[in-house]
């Protein structure tokens, strides 16, 4: 299964290069998913299906979904809907899809024709992994918890918004505008281009 290994490695490298050269975060994330999937196929090809599944579940699944949610939440606004339509052209998703399709084909070949254990190695049960993780390496696991805490506290501090104290006139202005929006959304949309930016 050396060919599968080389093809997936190539895909992983191409996809990762695309990640760091894209300008739009969402486009980069699409390629990042492909990159993770390529790594998963590499694991599958050397006979480690459990790690391959973990790679998909943890990285391509959980982490990327978080990234995408955050990116989507950052892009709130009326203009973004139009912008998104412009961005969602075939040239954007064609690249990742082709790469993903190659990976899928490889996986199908692996699952149907691949021999069971291509590498001569000892098989470690999942149970033994978890027992050693919660046995002798328990302190490392707890320290990893502190590592996450450091990341979260740091991100929470740097991402925190400063409290804005508006002058009362500005606050009233805001309220008026909000009421106006609630009452008559249609006129707002039709006058989208002329409407001045609401005072933040």
């Amino acid at each position, binding site marked *: 299964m050396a060919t599968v290994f080389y093809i997936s490695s190539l895909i992983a490298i191409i996809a990762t290069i695309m990640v760091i050269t894209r300008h739009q975060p969402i486009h980069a994330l699409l390629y990042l998913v492909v990159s993770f999937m390529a790594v998963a196929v590499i694991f599958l090809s050397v006979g480690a299906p459990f790690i391959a599944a973990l790679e998909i579940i943890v990285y391509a699944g959980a982490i990327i979904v978080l990234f995408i949610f955050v990116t989507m939440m950052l892009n709130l606004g009326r203009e973004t809907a139009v912008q998104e339509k412009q961005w969602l052209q075939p040239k954007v998703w064609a690249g990742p899809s082709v790469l993903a399709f190659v990976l899928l084909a490889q996986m199908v070949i692996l699952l149907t024709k691949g021999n069971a254990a291509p590498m001569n190695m000892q098989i470690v049960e999942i149970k033994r992994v978890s027992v050693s993780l919660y046995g002798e390496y328990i302190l490392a696991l707890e*320290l990893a918890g502190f590592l996450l*805490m450091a990341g979260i506290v*740091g*991100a*929470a501090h740097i991402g925190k918004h400063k409290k804005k104290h508006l002058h009362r006139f500005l606050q009233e202005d805001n309220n008026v505008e909000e009421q106006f929006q609630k009452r008559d959304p249609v006129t707002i949309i039709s006058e989208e281009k002329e409407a001045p930016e609401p005072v933040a």
Partner: protein
Amino acid sequence: MTPLQLTALLPYILLAAASIVVILLIAFKASHTVIQVVGFLLMCGVAVSLFAVKELLPVSILPLFEIDGFALLFTGLIIFCVLVVGLFSFIYFEEREENPKEYYILLFLSTLGAATMTISRHFISLFIGLEILSVSLYALIAYLRTRNNAVEAGMKYLVLAALSSAFLLFGMALIYMETGSMEFSAIAQKLGASSALFITGIGLMVVAIGFKLALVPFHFWAADVYQGAPSPVTSFIATVSKIGVFAVLLRFAQTIHLQSYPLAYFIFAAIAIISMIAGNLLALQQQNIKRLLAYSSISHFGYLLVAFLPGNAGSNEAVFFYLAAYSLTILSAFGIITLLSNRQQDADHPDFYRGLFWRNPLMATVLTAAMLSLAGIPLTAGFMGKFIVLTTGVRQGLWLPVLVLVVTSVFGLYYYLRIISLLFAEAPAAGPKEKTLHPFFYTATYTALIVLVLLLVWIGVFPSGVIEGIKAFL
């Protein structure tokens, strides 16, 4: 885990608990003052527990940790530095940041990372310790997020530290591939003649360690980060983070006899020599005092590597003594920078120091003592540190590094003395005096500075007591 092992871990458990205690205090809306005082007491508790567990040692917690006198000594130095840095932080952040409390969580977490490295005997604990340290430092450097250069410095550190971690992991993977183990002692056993894979692995790990210690040619971040980070955080980077990394480097090198591999030895000797030369030359033209201290720290860690090269018990003593002297010195220098900083910017411009002696003789005296110690003038700790490093080098016959050390120290004198001459220059018209908001903490900070300087002189004049103390632990 046996009760004995748990007891031996007590200082580290306390340290980890400190960050959680601070989180709880924030949740219950404790004031900045309360958090500062509780944090201080907790760190004192850690220091006391270090003495309490001293009798039990050495205890090893297989496979990750080894708690011995060596680890306690380095952890003790780290805790001492954090006590001082924490004290400086209060005034600094109280005035500048509307949200100074999370700072202490991050401070204690990064201390935990550095302390974990001192007891590591395994690549996994080394890496996790290093990552806890770096991840907390990213946020600490960019803590004043309204200042552009702080965010820039944090970003630079983030990218470079992440890259260096990748190098470290790849190096570890190569060594694991060669020896089939990640424990230092097991690596030492399974390692026969020096193989290409092993040396490549060591070379890649040197990149990461060189980055953390800001050794040439991995030093490019140092000046920008030192300048951009808040002054207390800069002093933390200059002391705690480097002590932790150096401790683990020492333990690793000692266990696998790193210095007996000619190529590895050559790499470290070369890094030491170019760090000493480049650090001192780059500092010569530097006006900004924080950048100057960054370059000076590059050259000081070059000196430290000269003591690291022999790789025997004597070199451990020399390294620890030098690190302790350097930490005392740099902490007192950064203490002055912190006190002089105003709301808008840190006191890194030479104008802050022009004629300081005529305005505030106490601060000027402390800074003068610190600069003299950095330059290695007799009667200061810096001189004794350099002397011991030189003795270690000469005993081993390392003539080239020792010669470079002496010559570059002379260059170093120029820029340290330039700052001192600035302090005694013609005084400009005194600006309006700023109101001191927290008289108690100002007094505490001044007391800490005076104690630091007295320690500097005491170690410089009577080093034998300290050396005996170090020998008793090692």
